[in-house]
């Protein structure tokens, strides 16, 4: 019984982790608080839905289309809209306020475009909705995919960031954006790539989630907020932090639903989140002070 709950919790947490990893890259390395993050997710969900329902394209194939599109879109957004803000900002605070306001606007634009095209209807289709038996627990294959993808992306990027020169450069930019150029790092390029990579991850998340979760043109905000909670809980910019925070929240939700009351799942999630922050004010894996 405990095993079943444990597995269900990990699988649910996989979705949360998957959604959060792109944001932790965008915020941690590029220093952009991207409020339109969830809209990127939903846009990818719509892409997968349209390709699957009108052209019959397998959502797994859509994944290969969505990831580069998410990358290109975020790359452009950064280059056109956010780079000027970064360039003109004198302090971290003024960049924070500018990027919040600008991406808040972007959120509405993307949402509005999706509303014009798809209306406010619930969108739902299902793909890979069959049970996979793991240690006696039946797990939905599509949700398992989210977990596997989260682990693979989290692990892969972690290795990329810690073992390669390119990754070291990115981390250097994250830690000390102003001194990175001194050691010959093109900070601007690194930051733009990290932001685009975050967009690609968001798009992957969107495609996978669309396979099992109902969404509407306006549900991006829900994902942004969930992702923010996970990112903050794990420590900004820390992939392993996002991964473990996502899994912890999934476990908390499932255990509370099973052993306490389903009515308190979200309350417990927020309670754990608040408790962890009070215990470690910079998140689980965060450095003492940014």
């Amino acid at each position, binding site marked *: 019984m405990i095993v079943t709950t444990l597995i269900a919790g990990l699988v649910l947490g996989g979705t949360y982790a998957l959604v959060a990893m792109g944001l932790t890259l965008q*915020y941690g390395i590029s220093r952009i*608080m991207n409020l339109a993050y969830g809209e990127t997710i939903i846009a990818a969900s719509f892409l997968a839905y349209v390709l699957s329902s009108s052209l019959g394209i397998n959502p797994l194939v859509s994944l290969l289309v969505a990831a580069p599109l998410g990358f290109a879109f975020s790359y452009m957004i950064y280059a056109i*809209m956010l780079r*000027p*803000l970064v360039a*003109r900002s004198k302090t971290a*605070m*003024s960049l*924070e*306020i*500018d990027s*919040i*306001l*600008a991406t*808040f*606007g*972007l*959120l*509405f*634009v*993307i*949402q*509005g*475009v999706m*509303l*014009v095209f798809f209306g406010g209807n619930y969108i739902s289709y299902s793909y890979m909705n069959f049970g996979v038996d793991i240690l006696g627990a039946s797990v939905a294959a599509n949700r398992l995919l989210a977990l596997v993808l989260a682990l693979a992306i989290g692990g892969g990027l972690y290795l990329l960031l810690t073992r390669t020169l390119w990754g070291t450069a990115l981390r250097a930019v994250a830690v000390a954006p102003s001194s990175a150029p001194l050691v010959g790092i093109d900070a601007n390029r690194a930051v733009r790539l990290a932001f685009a990579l975050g967009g690609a991850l968001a798009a992957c998340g969107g495609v996978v989630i669309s396979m099992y979760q109902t969404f509407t043109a306006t549900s991006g905000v829900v994902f942004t*907020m969930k992702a*923010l*909670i996970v990112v*903050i809980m794990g420590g*900004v910019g820390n992939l392993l932090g996002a991964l473990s925070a996502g899994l912890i929240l999934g476990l908390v939700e499932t255990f509370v639903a099973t052993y306490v*009351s389903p*009515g*308190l799942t*979200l*309350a417990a999630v*927020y*309670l754990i*989140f*608040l408790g962890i*922050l*009070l215990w470690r*004010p*910079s*998140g689980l894996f*965060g450095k003492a002070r*940014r």
Partner: protein
Amino acid sequence: MKRFAIAGGFVVAVAVLALAPLCLGAYGLGLLIGLAGYVTLATAWALFSGPTGYISLATVAFVGIGAYCVAALSEVLPYPLVLLIAAAIGLAVALIVGLSTLRLSGVYFVIFTFGLAELIRQLVTFYEINVTGTLGRYIFLGITPEQIYWQLLALGVITLLLTWWIGRSRIGLALKVIGDDEVVASHVGIDIARTKLALFAVSAVIMTLVGAIQAPRWTYVEPAIVFNPTVSFLVLIMALLGGAARLWGPLLGAVPLFMLFEWLSANFPNHYSILLGLLFILIVFALPKGVLSFVEDNWMKRRGPRAADRSEARS
């Protein structure tokens, strides 16, 4: 003399606003209620966040607490007493939350407050379902929109006066130092903890009262309606756009934004989101320092260097 003129101007403005419902229709009054509500919320938000730099998304938690107090108590207790109880509960919650400002900062505080508002919403929902057995509550109070508006206006005026007074007092100075550098502040001998806590509490009590006063307008109250996180975001955006560190900033952010929302949703119901989003992006690119500094800069150009000097000397 100048002081007298300012006070006079303020009194006249308030008087005009107070008499406005007499010559406006229900819709005009509805607009004024919305405006008064958001101006008060944004000013109260900036009261704490402006000088300290802590960005809070807990606004709607307090608004919701206020509304729920009215919904839960208005049938058993007289209205003024309900307002007092609402304020007291808001104060108690604010003191607990305020303690978190001692540990958290930056974006961690922002998301903490968001999580907190959601937690309160979840707990209220759970309590209502499992203890009282209902979810929605009805508010059948004989309070007219005019009365709601006058209460909000009075609260808004008090909030502005309070902000003005705090800005001139020793606390205001203390807060500015905290905003600049907490370490310096503590070395200068300012009790940071108490100052921050006090300000957060005052700001939260005002927000609670805004929720309590507006609640009778909705007739039906349920957590999804009164704990709508959009309110927190709107208030934050209004105050930030207007310039949170100045007395009139939140007002100058809230009024045009509110009117803009209204105008857009009335005229472009199907393209509201896109236009609003584009406008936001444009505003950020056009007015890097906020609406107020933009207004002031233009004032100074027209009034010549003398006014500019003075304004600089003051700020």
